[in-house]
């Protein structure tokens, strides 16, 4: 009788841990989707900025082509359930952000471009989108922390191992990217 009760309690506990893990994994995937929604906005906005910039920055072929290249890589499909592919996807988007910051820094050297009404509005929209990406990144990282704790701490780590649930990578911004860009450092 006691053995049956003990088995019953164990089964219930395992089931609760299983539910929690699945919820955390789904929560992280949801947070990843919300990042993708915001990254897609940036992805769609970049060509508009490039079109305006090209008119004034003919001699900055390297800067412009880097943005185009990173946009193409960051927009590739990936498997959301595969942490390595997620990490590559996030890294590619970090590189795109970096290329865009470089573009805006170089654009400082072109007063005609800076004063263009369309460029001013495009830059404002870009800043707004970056704000949303940053917010989505914080939501994602918060979800990743919860999942990582559950996957690495006993006893849920055993269930996670059995189910093949892995921790997802953080979406971090490098320290150098947090700092305001100085045009003189780049030129």
């Amino acid at each position: 009788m006691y053995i049956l009760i003990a088995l019953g309690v164990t089964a219930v506990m395992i089931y609760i841990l299983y539910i929690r893990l699945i919820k955390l994994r789904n929560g992280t995937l949801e947070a990843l989707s919300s990042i993708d929604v915001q990254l897609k906005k940036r992805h769609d906005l970049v060509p508009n900025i490039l079109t305006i910039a090209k008119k004034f920055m003919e001699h900055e072929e390297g800067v412009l082509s880097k943005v185009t290249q990173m946009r193409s890589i960051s927009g590739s499909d990936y498997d959301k359930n595969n942490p390595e592919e997620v990490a590559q996807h996030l890294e590619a988007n970090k590189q795109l952000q970096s290329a865009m910051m470089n573009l805006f820094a170089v654009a400082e050297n072109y007063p005609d471009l800076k004063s263009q009404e369309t460029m001013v509005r495009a830059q404002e929209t870009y800043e707004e989108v970056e704000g949303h990406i940053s917010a989505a990144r914080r939501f994602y990282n918060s979800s990743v922390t919860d999942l990582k704790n559950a996957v690495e701490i006993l006893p849920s780590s055993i269930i996670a191992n059995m189910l093949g649930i892995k921790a997802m990578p953080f979406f971090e911004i490098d320290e150098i990217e947090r700092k305001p860009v100085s045009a003189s450092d780049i030129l």
Partner: protein
Amino acid sequence: MTIEEMRAALHSFDEGGLGPVLDQLEERRKKAFNIFLGVVFLLGFCVFFLILEQGLTELVKFSGAGALLVSFFFYRRMSVIRREAKEKLMPALCDQIGLNYNLHPLSSEIIPYRNLSIIPSYDEMTLEDQISGKVEEIDFNLVEAKLVNVSRDSKGRKSRSTVFQGFLVEFDFHKNFNGETIITKDHTAIGNFLTGWAKKGEKVKLEDPEFERKFEVHSNDQVEARYLLTPLFIERVLKFNRLSSVKQLQMAFKNGRIYMAIKRKGNSFEGGSFNLNDPKLIEKNMQDIALIFDMVKELNLTQETKV
């Protein structure tokens, strides 16, 4: 007008035509007080005389009720004079910095705050002192509220307790958003668990430990909540919450606006009880108005860098 210009205009407030008006009110207050003392003395003397000389000891029973009645009439008279002083002073102060003042706001002003659950439940409310206008092109609307809960004990005796006294203020917010994000006081783990069922939206866990200790955030959009509550804005909220003039802050974002319920100590924007022409009284009202500038400045509501 910038905040600094508004502050300067407020402090250079010249009583001008207001001085004689306040002096006249102070004279009336003194006169009313002297009449009160005279009546108390006269009645006291008569009662004392009748009791001692005529032996009308039953008068003792009525003397207490009589004293209460006289005090009540005096209190009413003083309230009218105080209110008059306030009605003269507050519109003049607000006008000085281009703001509008209304002594009796509509009771509907409280509805958004009640719907957003950033004020406690109440049985009775008093709204007064509505100040509205623009501070550095930011639209705002402020009302002073006092919310009271009425309860009855086992014998049916009524008791009143103030559950909120302070400012209800809304500002235009500089970011575009569609959802609803509510920031309330943290009631510790058990309290949050018990009150959590009544909260709208999901709990939002933020990175700042101090903010997490002091506030609970709920939103129907996790990403939007973090878009609004950036690490920098969180710091500003904490700094504003530390001001001595703020007892407790609760806030919400909805329809492009930020709503704040700021619990404060005592009544604000008052005409004073004694010395109605005292410059300190004007200074106190100026300090109350200046809290509006602190809100805009500390929370950086005018900035457009979206952080």
